[in-house]
């Protein structure tokens, strides 16, 4: 356990296989027979209009919302439970816990011995070493999201589900945090929901667009090159335009 905390100890994160997934809320079908696969170790961004069911899909994969039908499994055959960490739009820091204790929340909730050294190291990775003992209320929005990121990484799980984690931040803070996240999230299988085409293009290996009622997934768009990509990369700008076109087309149907 002497490796830096940003480098996870598993050799290969598992992929996620989604087969014939159906989710309904009452009479309303969110999606039906949805099937797709996320390759192990890849970073996939999921885009689409608001209210289409992206968050519902993420919550279903996280095991928070039981599907009506279908199967979610890991590509290596082992169960997915206990291998997924979730980070939402809100930082969900517990206001009565210090930043450090928020990072170690998982240990506390599972009744395990908290790993202070690892939590402190992770806080240092996201630039919050100095604020470990502060209460969340004293942090700025960007700091709070970084603390939430450290808490997500502390869970030490190969699969990460991120629901617009950076959407509430200003453009500069967001760009910085994206770069940090891209490094810290290497060697994880990541599914990221975002409304920001730029964010999707900078961070991910593959883009998926969700459209329609009930929702379906468009063909995957592969994004070549190493992440995080520079925001002024011409290829990235082209792709961003293409993506925006698709999103606009999708929202008309």
């Amino acid at each position, binding site marked *: 356990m002497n490796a830096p905390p940003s480098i996870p100890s598993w050799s290969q994160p598992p992929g996620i296989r989604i087969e014939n997934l159906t989710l309904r809320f009452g009479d309303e079908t969110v999606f039906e027979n949805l099937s797709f696969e996320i390759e192990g170790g890849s970073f996939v961004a999921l885009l689409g209009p608001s209210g289409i069911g992206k968050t519902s899909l993420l919550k279903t994969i996280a095991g928070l919302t039981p599907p009506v039908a279908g199967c979610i499994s890991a590509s290596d055959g082992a169960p997915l439970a206990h291998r997924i960490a*979730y980070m*939402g739009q809100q930082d969900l820091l*517990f206001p*009565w816990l210090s930043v450090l204790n928020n990072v170690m929340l998982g240990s506390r*909730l599972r009744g395990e011995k908290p790993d202070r050294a690892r939590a402190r190291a992770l806080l240092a990775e996201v630039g919050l070493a100095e604020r470990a003992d502060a209460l969340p*209320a004293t942090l700025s929005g960007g700091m709070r999201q970084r603390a939430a990121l450290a808490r997500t990484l502390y869970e030490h799980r190969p699969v990460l589900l991120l629901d617009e984690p950076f959407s509430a931040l200003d453009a500069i803070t967001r760009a910085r945090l994206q770069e940090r996240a891209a490094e810290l999230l290497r060697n994880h299988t990541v599914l990221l929901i975002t409304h920001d085409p730029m964010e999707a293009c900078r961070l991910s290996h593959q883009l998926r667009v969700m459209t329609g009622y009930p929702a379906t997934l468009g063909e995957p768009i592969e994004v070549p090159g190493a992440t995080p990509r520079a925001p002024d990369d011409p290829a990235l700008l082209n792709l961003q335009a293409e993506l925006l076109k698709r999103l606009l087309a999708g929202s008309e149907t």
Partner: protein
Amino acid sequence: MKNAVLIAARSLAIFAGFLMLWQAAISLFAIPPYLLPGPADVAAALWTGRASLWSNMLVTLAEILLGLGFGVLVGAATALAMTAVKPLRRWLMPVLIVSQAIPIFALAPLLVLWFGFGMASKVIAAMLVIYFPVTATFFDGLRRTGAGLLDLADTMNASPTRILWHVRLPAALPAFGSGLRVAAAVAPIGAIIGEWVGSAGGLGFVMLNANARLQTDMVFAALFVLALLAVALWAIVDRLVKWLIFWPPETGQG
């Protein structure tokens, strides 16, 4: 510090103004002292009766504190039980409503009949008065834990017991704090009503006796001590709640 001085000065000014109005009304309408004694009469009664007022105040204080302690314990336990065991809600809710709906005035004679003239009946009366606000506010707080916090705890594979202890309970503390404040403010009602119905000590007992002998100045003196007691109690509980809930209120955490 400057603030505290200001608050003290303002309180004093209000108090002095009130005393002057009081004295003015008596002089103006020539109210006899057995109907409404003047501030000086009440002050004299306070001084001459100080020993008896002090010892009776201690009786009432003990009743209130015991009632508060047990009431908060039983109320918090009820709220926790209703949160942890869902079927209990349907069974306990009616009990809770009834505990609030039956006026304590109607119940006090029965309590004295059952538990005697001593402290027990007053402690139970105070308990009954505060049971509902404590249980209702705490239960509400426990139920309204942000869905986001619960989802997060769920993805961290927390057991329901740990979620209750580490998530729901602290998240419900602000609501519990409001319940405690209300409880501190109304607990004296229960104790005093219990004393009025039948007792051998306490400020209610002093008032009852003085009232029967038309010693109106002593009734006012006892009321004054009771008011001081109530304000002090509320201030202490308020401090305690602020210390317990040290984090600032959050907004928009689902």
